[in-house]
């Protein structure tokens, strides 16, 4: 499969959206584009299986390389391994769901869809690039659409949140940039190429400087404590699809970068700073969970719980075992699907009740059985019920973490496990309060989900179930990738 298609398709869709005359056409084009993305991601998945079945053991498949700025040794180098394929699948699922739930956007529809598609372009490009320069290029492409999505279509203190998000994410990418430049000049080849760099050994001294820069830089994107503060504000102010893209795709860019760039390229740095990473991620997990307990707004609940759940991603990466890193990727996919669904449902509820305060709801199950049933499913997924994706992913992270016999890792793992109890408390409380109890009078006339909302929810639920019931396919997809990272980690200095 030609990976360029993954960049060109969103680009063409975005241009086509701009050319359309009215909102109906815009939506049709965007939906067609998103559906094609989904089809393509499956084509990619099966193409990947086919190559592997044929005995192709190359680290990266479908590689392509074009010269781009040869004077800096930059090339447009694309390729995927299992980890990238998993992330691309996630992106395609979230994009189509996001397009579907935004069906009722009436304010500047064309611009809205244009930005959504542009954001997905950044994500695809990021996940398939094997050159650090273009990786960075796509990382930054994805920032400004988020800013505009929140600032124009958002609610509440949207300007503040949009500004905070854009500045913090750009701050993160500034650190990434400095780290990348450090890597670039430390190797004699002066290369940004990921594969080439992974074969060279970056000097340990450089790793000690660049690993924290890159890890923190990417960490900002994935809510690394204490740089998580944009998450609650950004998510709660964003329009529904914006929150879905933010939590479902954008935060995953950071996790992927931490794993693929920081940890893979700089194993010595990763080992040196593992303790700090683990401590910070455990703080994020617990702090996120406890902070969620205090929230009264559904969007804030999910935003803070995202901080907590993304902590598992960082914990998995910080533990540096094959299982834990596989778990981290699985958690990224699982959380992406789950949180996108959660935000979609919150959006649907808000559109009908015009409130997101848990205390003002009640008995909604009677009026909107479909929406509230999905809320149950997603809540159970969030608290880690076996059979749904959240359990599988978190369990893998815990199993990977437990492989370390030392007390510190054990304590960290146990503490992280504790958060599940807290999660259960806040999720059950919020869901119960929303769904059950007496129905308020003003909610008597509410209607259930429309076709587009149902379709969006079903697509995401399909993903959650596919991971929850049969996790092995995802595990088999991801673990060769983490195996390679592991091999690089186990080489002595």
């Amino acid at each position, binding site marked *: 499969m030609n990976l360029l298609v993954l960049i060109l398709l969103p680009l063409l869709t975005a241009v086509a959206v701009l050319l359309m005359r009215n909102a109906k056409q815009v939506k049709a084009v965007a939906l067609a584009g998103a559906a094609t993305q989904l089809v393509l991601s499956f084509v990619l998945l099966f193409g990947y299986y086919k190559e592997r079945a044929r005995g192709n053991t190359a680290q990266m498949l479908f590689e392509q390389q074009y010269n781009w700025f040869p*004077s800096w040794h930059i090339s447009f180098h694309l390729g995927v391994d299992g980890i990238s394929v998993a992330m691309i699948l996630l992106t395609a699922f979230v994009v189509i769901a996001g397009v579907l739930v935004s069906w009722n956007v009436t304010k500047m529809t064309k611009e809205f869809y244009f930005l959504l598609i542009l954001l997905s372009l950044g994500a695809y490009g990021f996940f398939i690039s094997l050159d650090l320069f273009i990786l960075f290029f796509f990382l930054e492409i994805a920032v400004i659409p988020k800013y*505009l999505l929140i*600032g*124009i279509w958002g609610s509440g203190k949207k300007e503040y949140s949009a500004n905070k998000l854009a*500045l913090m994410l750009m701050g993160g990418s500034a650190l990434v940039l400095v780290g990348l*430049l450090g890597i670039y000049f430390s190797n004699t080849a002066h290369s940004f190429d990921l594969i080439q760099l992974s074969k060279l050994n970056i000097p340990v001294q450089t790793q000690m400087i660049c690993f924290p820069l890159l890890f923190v830089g990417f960490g900002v994107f994935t809510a690394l404590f204490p740089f998580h503060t944009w998450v609650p504000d950004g998510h709660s102010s964003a329009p529904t699809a914006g929150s879905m893209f933010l939590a479902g795709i954008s935060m995953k860019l950071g996790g992927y970068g931490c794993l693929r760039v920081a940890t893979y390229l700089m194993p010595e740095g990763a080992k040196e700073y593992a303790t700090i990473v683990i401590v910070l991620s455990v703080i994020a997990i617990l702090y996120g969970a406890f902070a969620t307990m205090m929230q009264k707004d559904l969007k804030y609940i999910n935003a803070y719980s995202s901080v907590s759940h993304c902590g598992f991603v960082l914990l998995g990466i910080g533990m540096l075992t094959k299982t834990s890193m596989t778990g981290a990727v699985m958690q990224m996919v699982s959380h992406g699907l789950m949180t996108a669904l959660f935000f979609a449902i919150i959006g649907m509820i808000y559109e009908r009740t015009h409130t997101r305060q848990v205390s003002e709801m009640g008995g909604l199950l009677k009026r909107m059985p479909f929406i509230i049933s999905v809320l149950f499913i997603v809540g159970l997924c969030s608290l880690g019920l076996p059979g749904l994706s959240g359990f599988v992913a978190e369990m893998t992270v815990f199993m990977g973490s437990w492989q370390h016999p030392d007390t510190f890792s054990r304590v960290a793992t146990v503490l992280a496990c504790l958060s599940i109890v807290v999660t259960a408390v806040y999720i059950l409380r919020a869901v119960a309060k929303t769904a059950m109890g007496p129905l308020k009078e003003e909610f008597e006339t509410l209607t259930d989900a429309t076709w587009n909302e149902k379709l969006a929810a079903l697509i995401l639920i399909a993903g959650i179930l596919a991971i929850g019931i049969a996790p092995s396919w995802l595990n088999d997809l991801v673990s060769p990738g983490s195996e390679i990272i592991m091999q690089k980690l186990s080489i002595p200095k």
Partner: protein
Amino acid sequence: MDEMFTLMKPELVLTGIIFLLLFIKLGKGMKNETMLLLVQVLLLLNFIAGFFFNAEGRLFDGMYLTTNMIVLQKNMLSLGVYLISLLFADWFKKSEHMPEFFMLMLSALLGMFFLISSGNLLMFFLALELSTIPVAAMANFELDKKRSSEAAMKMILSSAFSSGILLFGISLIYGATGTISFSELPQHLDGSPLQILALVFLFSAFAFKLSVVPFHLWTADVYEGSPIAVTSFLSVISKGAVAFIFMATLYKVFQPMQAIWYNLVMILSIATMIIGNLFALRQQNIKRFLAFSSIAQVGFILVGISSNAVEGTTSVVYFILVYVFSNLAAFGVAAAIAAKAGRENIDDYKGLYQTNPFLSWVLALALFSLAGIPPTAGFFGKLFLLTAGASKGSYLFIIIAALNMIISLYYYLRVIRSVFMDKNEQPLEKIKIEPSVKLGLMICGAGIILVGLLSWIYDYVQSLS
């Protein structure tokens, strides 16, 4: 003789245009609209002519020299002037003395051509004066406005001051080395205290022209007071020309003292970025805002200059090409709004997107490019400046520069926010854009997108440096 015609072709063409304008002015009898169209065509031809029959060589014992790189730099300046003639059509048409304005502007451009081509400190000084004095007259062009005269006064005083410093530096250099020729100077430079003093004086004069902190104080007032066409000429064309010759002087002439000027460049770069950015944060007037942001941009240019000759030259020339498109686009939009609605404050832009989507998108592109956001060319320009600067291996310097990009993003986003997000009961009415302004804005927009993505442009610049 033949050689002189080919080597000095840009200057000769420009002189021809100036004389043509002079004769037309003397003959009278041409309406402003026709005149403007004629000037635009002439400037376009001048730009196109820059690409043909070029040669490398030196004239008058090395007083004047030209290379393919220098030709490229001159072409960039010609392009900028052509864009200016398109973008500020509203203002030109209203102006009573349009031919004079273009004569002054082209004289200044001629000075810059000689400046870039100079191979001798004397030539350099003359050219610098020729490129400065007409600009002061241009700044005073809105004769009925007090602010305009004030701007011209400030401009002429500060440039006289910097010329004095420059002359003193030149005399010290001559005293220390016995030569003023660029090609002979490097052999005589050994970093003795007197030479360092001379370097510092020369450096300050450059810093004045580039408005590097702490020599930036004239910039904001002059930019705000001058007509917007002059402001954009000052901030794009003048700065570009001075940056080119500054780079050439440092890399070619002061090469033996690189260890000394590297620190100077680094410290001034940090100061310029920080001060420029901090002052830009609170500006209300769009011209003042762009003035301070352009000071900060000069800080970034210095990051590139701190590098080695090849990477430094390439990245700076490339950045200035990007900067021509981005900054002129921003000024163009501001001018279109100021001409039709008479508003120059950022707050007046609230809700602009509702009524003027085209202007808003161009402004957004320009500001994103200035802030260095992909996929605009500014991203590549800034990134390559930082990469070039990082080749010397100073992490702290690059971190400070990268963090400054965040500060600058904050204030660029402030404008974006006004345009796209803020609600306004009475947004500016729909502005009818002149065809030539529209053409100019579209060229700028295309440049902002294409210069970055087409990587051969960078390679072409690299092949020349």
